[in-house]
């Protein structure tokens, strides 16, 4: 056996051993606390963290993880809607997957939605029907177009 073949075989053995980590490491599970910053999650079109969570800003907020989400999973959200979004359908979708719909009240509630991830995406997209600023409702001077407020998101395999 020549040296190059030996190196290749030994390397493939290392990869096979590395694959064994799949047996005891869950692919992607855990709870994302929106009141915290995380090195593993990026909040796109979301406001700064507040003590309870954070608000989405604009119509197409996105949560992007640092690794692909499972092919099929349940997302458990603790969330609320703002202003005209209360009770209206909010679309949740993995890019390339089938969309799910939820409706939220003005106070935190726990909802679950099952999502498919056919292309191995690492993002969850939301479509907010009516982003609205507290300023436009005369509530305060906050001019951000708020939609949904998320306290936490759990990915359940």
């Amino acid at each position, binding site marked *: 056996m020549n040296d190059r073949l030996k190196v290749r075989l030994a390397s493939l053995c290392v990869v096979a051993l590395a694959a064994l980590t799949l047996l005891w490491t869950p692919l992607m599970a855990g709870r994302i606390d929106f009141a915290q910053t995380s090195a593993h999650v990026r909040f796109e079109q979301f406001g700064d963290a507040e003590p309870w969570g954070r608000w989405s800003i604009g119509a197409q907020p996105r949560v992007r993880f640092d690794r692909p989400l499972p092919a099929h999973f349940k997302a458990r959200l603790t969330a609320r809607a703002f202003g005209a979004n209360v009770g209206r359908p909010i679309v949740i979708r993995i890019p390339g997957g089938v969309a799910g719909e939820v409706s939220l009240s003005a106070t935190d509630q726990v909802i679950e939605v099952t999502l498919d*991830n056919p292309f*191995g995406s690492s993002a969850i997209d939301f479509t907010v029907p009516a982003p609205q600023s507290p300023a436009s409702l005369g509530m305060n001077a906050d001019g951000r177009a708020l939609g949904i407020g998320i306290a936490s998101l759990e990915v359940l395999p």
Partner: protein
Amino acid sequence: MSELAPARRRWFLLGLGMATLLPLTTQTAARLLDLKVLGDVNVTLAFLASGFHVALTSFFYLEPDLAELRRLHRGRFVWAPLGLALGTAALTLWLHGDIAWVLAGYFAWQLYHYQRQNFGVMAFVASSQKVARPTTLEQVALEVAGYAGILGFFALDGFATPRKVGAFAAALHQVGLSTQIAAVLLSLVAMVLRLKREGWSWYPLWHLLCSGFFAGTFILPDIGLAFATYAYAHGLQYLVFMYSLSMARGATVPKLSPIALTFMGLAGSILLMVLGDRTMFSWSKDGLFGAYLGLVMAHFVVDASVWRLGEPTQRAYVRKAFSFIWE
């Protein structure tokens, strides 16, 4: 022995080191600082590291010292490139542009090609540092790192991976990450063994760098940034090799001079840019894009043939052109 050789060795290694780390630095800086100049630098790096670097391979077709090698290995220098360009064009036409699996094969080969270059980098580093050539353990670490990069690549969000692969992206990422960690651990073990055996040299740090070549895939949350860090690094490393070669050979053969090499790069990159633009030639039903992929893969084949230092002809050629490394 030339008195300039040690200085040239230092500059060569410095160039290779900068080529490897510059893209990570400029790409990260561009995301942290809103400076137009950084964007311009990254566009320039992207240009140099993509079609331009691929086109530099045409140098080997003009090199008189490789005429015999080209004649003996027509398969590698003529038939394989032709077959790859025409074959991939035919395949993409036959698939009516639904080429996710073709792209998967292409990218897997491309990343493997990147890591093979790192084997070459390590051979050059070992010789210029006057230390023993890469051990089996060190070679395994590099090879494992290459597999980690490929596994991680297919888990990168946003790339046109086939649907069936995409469904396993989470598992691929997990195995890729574990494999990458294994590569770094192997490199660290090899580092301890080498330092014990030979004392201090820059070699172990270089080895760690090459073993973590694809680590950005697993560390950086930004897909574009992760890919650019190693794809551009590979292209820039190649520029360092080719311009060093050109400076040595161009002194006696004008058509191989750095200026001539730059023209080869520019002409070839324009051709590749045009062929690779799927919108410009949409009438070709992706046939020309297939030819583009084939030509880039031809670069993998030709390159692997010329830099095969285990073969006496290629070893003699490289040692002569890079005499300052081996002096």
